[in-house]
């Protein structure tokens, strides 16, 4: 039971990171229609910037964090102006592939500036070693931080979108850009804000993950990104809580399956292999989509003749 709780907790924690990334993916997808394959690269570059701040000028964690978050907001807004604008009216596939090109460019540029980050580097954080014990369950301090930050981001985002004028304009833009423009919503600034905000979220997710594992490089978010995408789609691609829940479900499933399958084998087949686990998760994901083609929390769209 304790082992189960321990694993479930770990699942929720990794799932929260997938969920954070899924939040940013859905945010950009809803407001600008871009399926952002560069999202992992954006998070990795921001995390890398923070690692450099801590390694080079030896800034303390807090200051480096602040610097990285400001950097990420600027990066996101800069990308909106330089990248998202020119492809805004392009077909949806063109936009998706354009983000792929963007990821290649970002990673190359970052590698030129910080060649040391092409290998894994140590990422130190003040939460690295401490842990608390609740009942029989050990909780690493960093895990507590991850859960708190995730919850904080979700609540803040939800409040922003439902309580502030700008947030409501942002939702209107997501529903219908042309209508929102006619109603006087500052569509251009909203797109700018969306990219900035989602880049900050990507940076947070990257920094949290790097703090947890103690390591990072410029492509360390790539494998995580696919799970985040699946979480986002599982949650319905429409709703932010859906994205978070989708991410957490994926994280939980991954960890629980690892526990259940550990040490078992079918004949020559070692089913505790991570490959089997992945196959089961993706298989389950496809099954869910078959019964709920719009994801767990998405709504069916109507077709008109």
């Amino acid at each position, binding site marked *: 039971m304790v082992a189960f709780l321990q694993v479930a907790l770990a699942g929720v924690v990794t799932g929260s990171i997938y969920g954070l990334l899924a939040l940013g993916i859905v945010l950009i997808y809803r407001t600008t229609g871009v399926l952002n394959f560069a999202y992992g690269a954006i998070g990795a570059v921001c995390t890398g910037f923070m690692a450099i701040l801590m390694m080079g000028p030896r800034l303390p964690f807090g200051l480096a964090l602040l610097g990285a978050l400001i950097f990420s907001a600027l990066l996101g807004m800069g990308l909106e102006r330089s990248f998202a604008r020119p492809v805004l009216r392009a077909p949806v596939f063109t936009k998706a592939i354009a983000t792929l*090109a963007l990821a290649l460019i970002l990673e190359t540029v970052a590698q030129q500036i910080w060649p040391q980050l092409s290998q894994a580097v140590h990422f130190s954080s003040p939460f690295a070693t401490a842990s608390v014990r609740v009942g029989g369950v050990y909780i690493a301090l960093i895990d507590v931080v991850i859960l708190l930050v995730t919850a904080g981001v979700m609540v803040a985002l939800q409040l922003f979108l439902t309580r502030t004028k700008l947030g409501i304009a942002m939702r209107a833009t997501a529903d219908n850009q042309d209508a929102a423009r006619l109603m006087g919503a500052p569509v251009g600034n909203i797109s700018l804000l969306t990219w900035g905000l989602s880049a900050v979220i990507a940076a947070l997710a990257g920094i949290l993950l790097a703090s947890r594992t103690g390591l990072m490089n410029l492509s360390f978010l790539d494998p995580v990104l696919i799970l985040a995408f699946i979480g986002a789609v599982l949650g319905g691609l429409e709703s932010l809580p859906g994205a978070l829940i989708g991410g957490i479900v994926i994280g939980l499933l991954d960890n629980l399956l690892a526990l259940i399958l550990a040490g078992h084998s079918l004949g020559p087949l070692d089913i505790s292999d991570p490959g089997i686990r992945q196959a089961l998760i993706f298989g389950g994901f496809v099954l869910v989509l078959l019964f709920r083609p719009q994801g767990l929390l998405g709504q069916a769209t109507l077709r008109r003749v």
Partner: protein
Amino acid sequence: MSDPASASPRSAPPSAWLRSRWAGWFIAGVGVVALLLVPSTYDALYGFQAGFQLHRISLIGIYIIAALAQNVLTGYAAQPSLGNAAFFGVGAYLLAWTNTDLHQPYWLGIVIAMVVCALLGLIVGGPALRISGTYLAIATLGLVLVTQSLLDLWDKTNGRQSYDLTQLPLSLGDDHTLYVFIVVIVVAVLFFVRNILQSRVGRAWVAIRDNEAAAEAFGINLTTYKLLAFVISALLTGLAGALYATWATTASSSSSSADQTIAFLAMIVVGGLGSIVGSVIGAIFVGFLPLLLQQLPAIVSAGPIRIQVTTLQSGIFGLLLLLALIFFPEGLRGIVDRAGLLMRRLLNRHIATGASEGVER
């Protein structure tokens, strides 16, 4: 409505020949002959390196088949599936298995790869009909990752480092023969796919893409034709995968990676959705440009600045890809279309002036 009298001269231009089927076959014929002359040209150009260079460009042919397959599914039948790399990997492994472990003839391995992939396409296509848009794209991307995991696992269970094809026909070991072999297959595939796209089946796919409701109202069975697109696409991708294994003389699970499957999509997006020419251009762009970039000098120095070009390759490729997408959001085939239009106009003017001179005389 425009005046019929002014429109009619445009509908029967003197350059009608350029649009006629004979012109098309003629251009295609010239193209094939040119492709078959490439090996001798390379012998003259590269000497003993010709084989190596031919081997590299043979890969483009394999990508052309895969890009066509993706375009049939996504550009024509409008199914935004990212699952094709699954068939690419399965095709490669099936050939490796029949070739190395079962000691079957090479051609049989190719046929098995195609048939099994077609069946898998049917199995994947069934559920895919219930899922649409982005959901389908991500779900099928998941399928690719599952396939990669399973292929990896197969390797691991058998304790293989790599799955080498040991019983390949000796002649395919020669780079010149391999090149001609691939060119012949690519030309055949282009020929058949073009015919299908211009037939009742191709029109049904485009009808579904343009307007599902209207397509149905004219008796097009959506399920049948979408499934058919999945099957044809999977079959061709399976063929491409088997050829890839032949080309690399090994099958690797990276054939079924997310990167590979997105590369297929990138090919048709940068080349042009719903266009055969676009598939070819896209395959060249995504398949050949990185090879060209490898030819760049390793270090460029201008005065005190020394630039390490080798580490810039993927970034340069990304930049070129991005520029292509920004300036040609409908695909690079736009260049070809414009060139064709220009040629037709020039020809029209030429003939028109010739005709009017004739009248004057």
